[in-house]
């Protein structure tokens, strides 16, 4: 196991806009990187380059000292000892579930008891022991995804690439699977790269979170840090459910703003100051009390609580949580107890 290094990686499919643009990233030995970003931002393309399915248009990929891909050539995927869960699962329709899962072992020439044990273990981990003899076409969507998962985890790869591996699973299975990943990671020490749309999942699993947008890497940091200190509007908007507000710049140099400061900025708003952007997370917005006047735009029932969309007097939008239902169009007062200057 060694560091996985992406150096100035680019990929252009020839569509005019590069799919991946100048991405440089180091994933430490045995690290667990979550790759976040909006749909179409190039996450899958990055994984495919790491796996060796696409040749980078520029830049290089290294695993420790070993050059996997650069201008002079590429190591073919079969010699990279990696495993991947494809976004499209990529199951082999002519093989049974058991054959699909055991194939990487067979290729490595593993057989006998340890082979059977490993396969059963992997199938148990994804709760598919009862489906060994089925063909992928006769499985439900989530079951297919689990087969892909089992196939990925059955060997001991150096690098594991997971492309939205839990998208089709229910919450319970998801939690179990997250647990499985964590165990697998701890046990095997493999470097994991995990693409997901689910920010909570990323936070829960990863040692580092990377955020991409339109082919570029915006920020890489540990989960708590990226949550607490997002860089720029895009990352701020993506991590957590925060709203980004534009306020006059008070020129202060600390970035964590309290209610008093925020209130002061609102009062200032009319002046011709230069502006700045501030990220406000919904849990920092308290409805009630004597705050800023706002109108309820929409209310979403989330079970545990209501997610409320608010519009302030100056037309800016906010999101807040409330344990009680509000009516649409209701006028309320809000206190913004914390904000983060982007």
């Amino acid at each position, binding site marked *: 196991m060694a560091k996985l290094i992406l150096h100035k990686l680019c990929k252009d499919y020839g569509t005019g806009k590069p799919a991946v643009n100048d991405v440089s990233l180091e994933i430490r030995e045995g690290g667990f990187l979550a790759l976040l970003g909006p749909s179409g931002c190039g996450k899958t393309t990055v994984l495919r380059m790491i*796996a*060796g*399915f696409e040749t980078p248009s520029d830049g290089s990929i290294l695993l420790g000292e070993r050059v996997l891909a650069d201008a002079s050539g590429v190591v*073919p*995927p*079969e*010699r*990279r*000892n*990696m*495993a*991947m869960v*494809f976004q*499209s*699962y*990529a*199951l*082999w*329709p*002519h*093989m049974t579930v058991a054959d699909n899962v055991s*194939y*990487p072992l067979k*290729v*490595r020439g593993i057989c006998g008891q340890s082979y059977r044990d490993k396969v059963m273990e992997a199938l148990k981990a994804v709760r598919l022991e009862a489906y060994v003899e089925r*063909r*992928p*076409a006769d499985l439900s969507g989530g079951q*297919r995804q689990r087969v892909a998962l089992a*196939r990925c985890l059955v*060997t001991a790869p150096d690098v594991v690439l997971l492309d939205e591996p839990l998208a089709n699973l229910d919450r319970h299975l998801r939690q179990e699977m997250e647990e499985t990943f964590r165990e697998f990671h701890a046990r095997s020490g493999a470097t994991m790269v995990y693409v997901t749309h689910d920010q909570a999942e990323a936070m829960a699993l990863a040692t580092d979170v990377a955020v991409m947008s339109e082919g570029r890497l915006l920020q890489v940091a540990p989960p708590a840090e990226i949550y607490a200190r997002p860089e720029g509007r895009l990352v701020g908007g993506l991590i957590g459910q925060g709203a980004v507000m534009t306020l006059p710049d008070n020129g202060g140099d600390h970035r964590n703003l309290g209610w008093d400061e925020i209130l002061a900025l609102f009062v200032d708003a009319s002046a011709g100051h230069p502006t700045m952007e501030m990220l406000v997370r919904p849990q920092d917005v308290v409805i009630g009390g004597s705050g800023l006047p706002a109108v309820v735009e929409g209310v979403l029932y989330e079970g545990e609580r209501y997610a409320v969309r608010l519009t302030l007097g100056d037309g800016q939008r906010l999101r807040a949580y409330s344990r009680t239902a509000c009516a649409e169009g209701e006028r309320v007062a809000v206190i913004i107890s914390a904000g983060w200057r982007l």
Partner: protein
Amino acid sequence: MPQPLAKANSQPRWLFPFVVSFVALLCVLPLARLVAAGVSTFFSGRALDLLLEPAVWSAAVNTLSTSFFGMIAAVVIGGLFALSLTLADVRGKWLMSFLFMLPTMIPPQVQALAWVGMSGPSSPLLKALGIAPPMGSPQPLYSVGGIALLYGVQHAPLVYLSLRAGLLALPRDGIEAAKLAGASPLRVLRDIILPLSLPGIVAGAAIAFVSGVGNFGIPAILGIPAQIYTLPTLIYSRLASFGGSTFGDIAVLSAMIGLMAVAGLRVQERALRGKDYRVIGLSGAAATFRLGRWRPLLEALLWILLFVMLIAPFAALVSASLVPAYGIVLTLKTASFSAYEEILFRQNVTQTAFANSLFLASTTAFGLLVIGVLAGYTLTRGGSRWTGLLSAMIEIPYALPGIVISVAFVLLFAAPLPLLGVTIYGTIWIILAAYFASFLAVGLKPVVSALRQLDPALEEAARLSGASFYRRLFDIIVPLIAPAAGASVILVFLISCNELTVSALLWSAGTQTLGVAIYNLDDSGSYDLASALSVLVVLMVVVLMLLLELVAARLPKGVVPWRN
């Protein structure tokens, strides 16, 4: 309110009966008529006599063994080309796949003669190298192995076309997943690519096998000198001494061939049963393998094969057309274009034959595409118990030697049609009908294998969009199986373009086909004219293929087999 259908079946109610009646009319009825004609034989005990003749059994064994080994050879050669040209990064794909279509166009007997000429005492090539065996030394091709080898050469393009369509439907991510699992390219080939394209391979192998069972030209030239008879040559020799029991004999021998075809079909079904080839999700983007230092080697191998399969026999053909008589050595002095002059400007049968064959081949090719798609759809989607029987009925006519089919058609159609009072006998339509019957299996096979690989959800999505059966067919299914549909059209076109034995008995004045014209010229000793006409036919096909190339950009992807 729309009437509920009996089943949630995706096919309209008329489809199965339509296909069944088509097959019954064109495939079953003529053969039934033949059996009826021979029925007295069956009861007179002659059938038993026939079955007790060792000659019949040795012919059956020869037929099976030549066709089987021929099939293997065809699968090896066709498979090699299909895999190399669709999956690997060899150079000159366009030219190679273009040329690879052509051996089918060289009539089997010409192909056989060319090979005999190439490898025998009279071989110009061997003579030039000074290693020609002395006059009269045994010819290695006059053997079961030789026949099988030529079957392989002749039928390899059929396997190629059918397999290629299967390879184009492979899911790219499935191959990638296997690579990432650590499988070397060869393992990926063995474990993923070949099993997934099995329907295509099996279809191609089946066409090759059945073509071998019914082939007359090659065993006639390579087999008879070595006393190796196959069922078609045996049937032919029975026809030569036509007697009262001949129909019965043909019926019995045909039944044996039919049984072989059905057995072949069984094997084919067994090979495909219980497996799933439906590609889930997106497919189509073919993966390529980088060959690295193996590339020049593979390319050399492919070119050598092409040379031996196409260029050498074609050169033999050309040289035969340029010398005035057989056995004269071609030199600048002896060469003359008089054969071409004669063929092009003096023989008016040439024009008629070109017109007829083009009409027959294109009508058959496109007609069978329509019927093949409809029949393929019923066979793959309809869960009817009769589908097995139906496929057998479709298979048998192609396996029978053309002459049997044509005898059956004469028997059935020589008299005016009941009710209508007109007769199609003696017109071009009877040839067309016979072509439809014989080549349905060829047109159907690639289509069926492509339908097997189709993700059913794609059709379901169209149904839910409100598309009726016809719309789905036109908008979704046919474009999705385009490579197979293209293969089917091209296969049928090529085969019917130089077809001989079916039309041999069915033609009459004005309805000669190219095959008949070539055969008659050859048979009456005008080898130079026959060769010249064959050369012209090959050139015509090349021109047609080039024309196709012009419109290829507007056709669905994958239809034209030499474009990648």
